[in-house]
């Protein structure tokens, strides 16, 4: 028996490792409570964040993302887009095809949208942009070093987008009392309607940046509206 001890121990360790690896994937999904620590460092039950604070943090994220995306777009336009093609007409021509469900554009209409709808819209927007941004990073690598700034910004935005997604999920869970799992990341690049005569990658990338900027703005506005409703419901509905 004594000779078999090392072997048994090794087997046990391997089993534990296998289970850990298996369950790691679903660690967060299962909703295992996190270890929280108070000021003294003692482990206590987690105090969930308040709705106001969560909303504020989410709005901060959205604002930052919008700000950085706007900078990236401006930089890209200055560096790579010829002057002749910088007209508003061309900007608008690279239209961004939205998702299947339409999002109303006017303020009055948006104000009539319910909270649930707003939150879900934001979540959909966030999730729909993660993959295109990853794709954009790959394409930006093919540019020379001048695009390093834009590449860094894009990377940063991608990270922030992931955290924003987590925040929205949490917000949905709190506000709407709904539980959501990690949704699939379905995205098709065909939503970017590039003019058929211009197949250059530059314009395609420019279209990606422009459209993302618009959608980031949307997220920010929606979340702010949501916050207004949360703080002062009466005044927010009056346009």
């Amino acid at each position, binding site marked *: 028996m004594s000779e078999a001890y090392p072997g048994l121990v090794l087997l046990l360790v391997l089993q534990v490792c296998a289970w850990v690896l298996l369950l790691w994937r679903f660690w967060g999904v299962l909703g295992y409570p996190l270890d929280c620590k108070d000021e003294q460092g003692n482990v206590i039950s987690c105090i969930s964040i308040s709705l106001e604070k969560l909303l504020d943090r989410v709005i901060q994220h959205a604002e930052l993302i919008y700000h950085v995306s706007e900078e990236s777009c401006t930089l890209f336009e200055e560096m790579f887009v010829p002057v002749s093609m910088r007209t508003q*007409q061309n900007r*608008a021509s690279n239209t961004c095809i939205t998702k299947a469900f339409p999002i109303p*554009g006017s*303020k*009055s209409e948006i104000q009539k949208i319910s909270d649930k709808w707003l939150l879900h819209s934001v979540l959909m927007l966030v999730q729909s942009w993660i993959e295109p941004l990853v794709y954009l990073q790959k394409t930006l690598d093919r540019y020379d070093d001048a695009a390093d700034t834009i590449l860094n910004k894009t990377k940063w935005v991608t990270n922030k987008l992931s955290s924003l997604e987590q925040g929205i999920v949490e917000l949905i869970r709190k506000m709407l009392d709904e539980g959501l799992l990690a949704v699939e990341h379905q995205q098709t690049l065909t939503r970017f309607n590039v003019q058929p005569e211009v197949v250059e990658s530059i314009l395609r990338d420019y279209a990606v940046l422009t459209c993302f900027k618009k959608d980031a703005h949307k997220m920010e506005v929606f979340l702010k509206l949501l916050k207004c409703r949360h703080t002062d419901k009466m*005044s927010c509905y009056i*346009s």
Partner: protein
Amino acid sequence: PPKRPYFVDCRSPEQETFSCWWSAGDYQNLTGPGALSVFFQKNRDVWRECPDYSTAGENHCYFNSTYTSIWIPYCVQLRSQIQDIVYHQMCFTVDEIVVPDPPVGLNWTLLNISQTGQHFDILIQWEPPPSADVKKGWISLVYEPQYRAINMSDWKPLEVERARYQSVYGLKTGMEYEIRVRCKQTASEKFSEFSDHLYVYIPKVPTKETLFPFTMILIFGAVGVIIVLMLIIFSQQQRLMVYFLPPVPVPKIMGIDPELLKKGKLDELNSILSGHHTFKPELYNDDLWVEFIELDIDDQDGRSNHSDTHKLLGSENLNGNCLNIKDDDSGRASCYEPELPDSDTLDRSQAEAREEKASLLDSEGKAAHSSTADPSPPGRSHPGATAEGASRSHPQIQSQLSSQSWVNLDFYAQVSNITPAGGVLLSPGQQSKIEKTAEAHSSPKTQKCQLAMTTDSAYTSEMDAKNISATPSLNGNEPKVTVSPYTVSEAPASSVPPVSDYTTVQAVDSQQSLLLNPSTLPTKGTPMPAGYLTPEQLNSIMP
């Protein structure tokens, strides 16, 4: 070609409505209302005509909130009235053309004034444009305040911040300032128009300002005066010390630096002190041995030294004796001619100069010279003597010594007297012997204590003793003075008693001559030093 009508710009002030305006260009006939039409397309839908031509003014097309959708592409076209010519097309999204209205409600409050009263800080505040719905978060604005002094032309911008207030630091009192604010959407580049100007002015406070430099002047002046005083004191320190604390006089010799004495520079000191007549440089001479041998002709006192020196050496006496006893056949005194090197002729001139002095030589030696009675002053002797005397320096004397025969030289000389000056008077030994023999012949009556004088030689030869003893026979009454190494009794003269070195003195006769005791064998008894008498023996001997 003439310029065609075109859209100047489209603008949305609050992201809820927007308007576009155009220009007719060079086509003057199209400037009137209704000459041109505007069509728009929303989201690539159908083209519709502008809903409102009048609200925004002439050549403006106004779209109210029902027509305005954000993030949706719009296209507007400028067409002719007939609607068949498209002069210009423009596409955009409303969120891109947002240019807000300027802020309103600008005011300022005083934060503080500096201690000098020269500067002050203020806090300026404003309100967002009323059209912009910032409260609901529909639009986010950032602000940029600017300020300048009235007489300046450049506006100084402050930070672009989202806050509706900002502080302005470092404004000067007594100067009027102008402040204005503008805003823009967060992600946009287009700023709004500037707000109304705000005027800020704080008068100067005179009292503080005038007092402050005055006190500073006082302080700096006092410090400067103190520094100058310190400099004066330190530069004139020595003089002030002498003035306030006069030095105590210390004893000192006039004209002599005490430092010389300390350092032991005797030569300089000698030169200084030789000016004083009372000073004798010899005192500071290191060579003390030379003191008594060195002769100074100029010095009156040194004459005895002069005579003593060659008496000590015996060179002169030899010469004198030679000359004086040339008739003597004793043969005892070996006479020789001293070999004087050229000094003879040299010294002759000196000798003539000092002949007077030479004649005064040696008062004690006169007797010896006069007895032999050579009245004529020998021409040679004196010069020779003077020559001897002249050469009194060490080397000359030594040269004479070397020229003489050492065999006949007497190594010892009898000290006859001591001069008051401290010099030693010597009498020559052989002279005394010769003297005795001469006296024995010529003047038997002369009494001398020959024995006392003949102390130079410890030995007397037999012949001398016989000669001496022979004298009593001549003198008769004279007591016998037997000086013999032999213990000789008068009767047995043939027997030869053993010789003894010492003889005891038995008695001293009336003539004051010593009677030696012959019987005593000094060899057996205590040896007596030659020439010395112990006081007890003398007492026993003396009657």
